[in-house]
């Protein structure tokens, strides 16, 4: 064993070895993340500055041409607007529904366990299976929803076959599917709220709304933020139900960004343009995440 060096050098060595150890411990995760997330993301951004290679025509550097094409592409704008609408409507609805369901199954009612299970069931189903169930609900004439509508004496609605209803029909499936999952988070949050706060409120004769507004809502706010970030990111990652239910139609009425990227990449084989679209999606998601963490964070009550 080597003799111990002067005091300061020993400290430095220890510090270095702690850093090395730390990096070694993180190495598997870093390698995985880099290989499957960071390197692909960077190479996507680089690819978006090149033309798509085809056979004997290699990729050439074209600067921001793909982005100029995008600005002039009406289908991109429709997909973008559809996606915004999709996020703005499904996220608050899913959160509201999830919170309502959590409040219901958190209260002392009989059959609570069965109800919890029922609310959670949609989450367990694979999206494609859920989409196929809803495909049957939406089928014109003999589909479940149309049979109900007809039972009341109204005419049939072609939910997935008309431009006005195709996107809302997809939104309903998403809310139905996601609310159960988010309910679990809210249920956990509700059970963390100290019961003495509610007792104090009862002593003060606070109304139900007041209790919710002044105690429950502020205390579940961190969960709301967490769920909102996840739901928003999910809203931009939707692709399964679009492929299974509408194929983006009619006339792009239900085309969302990720579906459009898939179409450009694997139907049109325009990998350069698909890379540019992916870069825009990446930026949009990064902005959303950063904005939520930095702006909303300050207004949220953390214990």
């Amino acid at each position, binding site marked *: 064993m080597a003799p111990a060096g002067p005091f300061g050098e020993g400290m430095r060595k220890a510090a270095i070895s702690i850093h090395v150890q730390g990096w070694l411990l993180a190495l598997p995760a870093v390698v995985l993340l880099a290989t499957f997330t960071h390197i692909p993301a960077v190479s996507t951004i680089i690819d978006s500055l090149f033309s798509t290679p*085809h*056979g*004997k025509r290699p990729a050439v550097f074209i600067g921001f041409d793909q982005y100029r094409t995008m600005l002039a592409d009406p*289908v991109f704008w429709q997909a973008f607007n559809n996606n915004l609408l999709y996020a703005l409507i499904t996220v608050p609805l899913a959160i509201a529904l999830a919170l309502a369901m959590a409040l219901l199954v958190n209260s002392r009612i009989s059959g609570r366990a069965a109800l919890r299970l029922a609310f959670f069931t949609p989450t367990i189903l694979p999206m494609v299976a859920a989409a196929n169930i809803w495909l049957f609900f939406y*089928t*014109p*004439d*003999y589909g479940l929803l149309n049979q109900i509508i*007809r039972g009341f*004496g109204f*005419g*049939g609605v*072609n939910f*997935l*076959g*008309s*431009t006005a209803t195709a996107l809302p029909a997809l939104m309903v499936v998403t809310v139905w599917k996601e609310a159960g999952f988010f309910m679990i988070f809210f249920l956990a949050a509700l059970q963390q709220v100290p019961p003495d706060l509610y007792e104090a409120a009862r002593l003060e004769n606070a109304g139900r709304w007041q209790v919710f507004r002044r105690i429950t809502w502020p205390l579940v706010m961190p969960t709301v933020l967490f769920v909102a970030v996840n739901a928003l990111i999910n809203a931009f990652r939707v692709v399964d139900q679009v492929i299974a239910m*509408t*194929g983006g*139609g*009619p*006339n*792009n009425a239900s085309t969302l960004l990720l579906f459009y990227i898939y*179409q450009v990449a*694997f*139907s*049109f*084989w*325009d990998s350069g343009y698909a890379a540019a679209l992916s870069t825009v999606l990446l930026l949009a998601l990064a902005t959303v995440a950063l904005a939520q963490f930095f702006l909303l964070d300050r207004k949220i009550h953390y214990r």
Partner: protein
Amino acid sequence: MNIFARTAVAAAFAAMALGVSAASATDITFYYPIAVGGPITKIIDGYAAEFSKAHPDITIKPVYTGSYQDSIVKAMTAAKAGNSPDVAVLLSTDMFSLIDDDLIEPYETIATSEADKAWIKSFYPAFMENSQADGRTWGIPFQRSTIVQYWNKEAFKAAGLDPEKAPATWDEMIAFGKKLTKKDASGNVTQWGIEIPSSGFPYWLFQALAIQNGATLANQAGNKVAYNDPKVIEAAQFWADLGQKYEVQPKGIIDWGTTPKDFFEGKTAIMWTTTGNLTNVRKNAKFAFGVGPMPSKVHGGSPTGGGNIYIFKNTDKAKLAAALQFARFLTTPEKAADWGIATGYVATRPDAWETEAMKKYAAEFPPAVVARDQLKDAAAELSTHDNQRVTKALNDALQAILTGAKPAKPALDQAQEEANRLLASYKH
């Protein structure tokens, strides 16, 4: 040496020996999709085993690759990663995409013997239209189809129509449709006259209407389309009118997948769909049904559809030769007949219909012959360079017209403009 080391050495030698023996045989990877019902995987595996028995030096590895769309995605990505299949069944309309990416070998460069050349000429000309470009043959017809109309004979009888006669003209489509469309007391339709599906790939069914009206949607070179030809606009208007003006067809988009179910459930008296659904309808329709050729305006007609056999480029000449052997094996008259009977696809060559098996099948089930007889009026399915994008421009326009979002002319003008832009770089 301990036992592990010895085993390892033995294994290494065995692997080397295997490697040597594998190199002397030719492995052929064969991608195929499934687009119709039935035990397709079993049939294909059977064909591969039969071929390997006759050619012990060639091993066929059949790989089921999902739908047509999944299959082209897998073939293209595998090829770009330097691991392309040797033989693949892909849509005939994928031809230009495969040529443009320099992935497939034209048959003329490998099929050089007199027998090979005669083989290329042995298929129905209508199927070859989608298989040749620039004077060369890029695909060999394998599982090909056309559109036919199926009608419910009982519904025809109930409406006072001759159950043995399908509408033969556009005027009859409207007249029959009006008689066949039934409403309940509150005015809701309980049975539609006709359904022409319009989800997913409306261009294909629309192309039948366009052909009937005397229009051709794309040129043979695949670099020019005629989306806003007045005859095309008229055909699109007629399709929309069936729902919006004459009210004999549901309004909006009609789903391709549920159309056969609508037919079985009696929700529609007539449906247009592929001949590939023949076996499905035969099994599931609980009433007497008829299968007829497309009606006519200027003349009858339907686009062809379905998949061709492509041979992928390879520097190994032995592989190309083996791939050709396999393609020829899959398309002999006997195999073409057998495949047609098993699936409902149209047997791709006239001499397949002269085989005993096919004669017997046609006698037992006359509707099988309808698609073949329609081939004389059939035209190439819409296929161009940058195919899926150029086609999507038409799909979007058609869906806009059918949902009433846009009138026919401006929608198709816009589609034409988009297609011109996309095809500009392919004009030599």
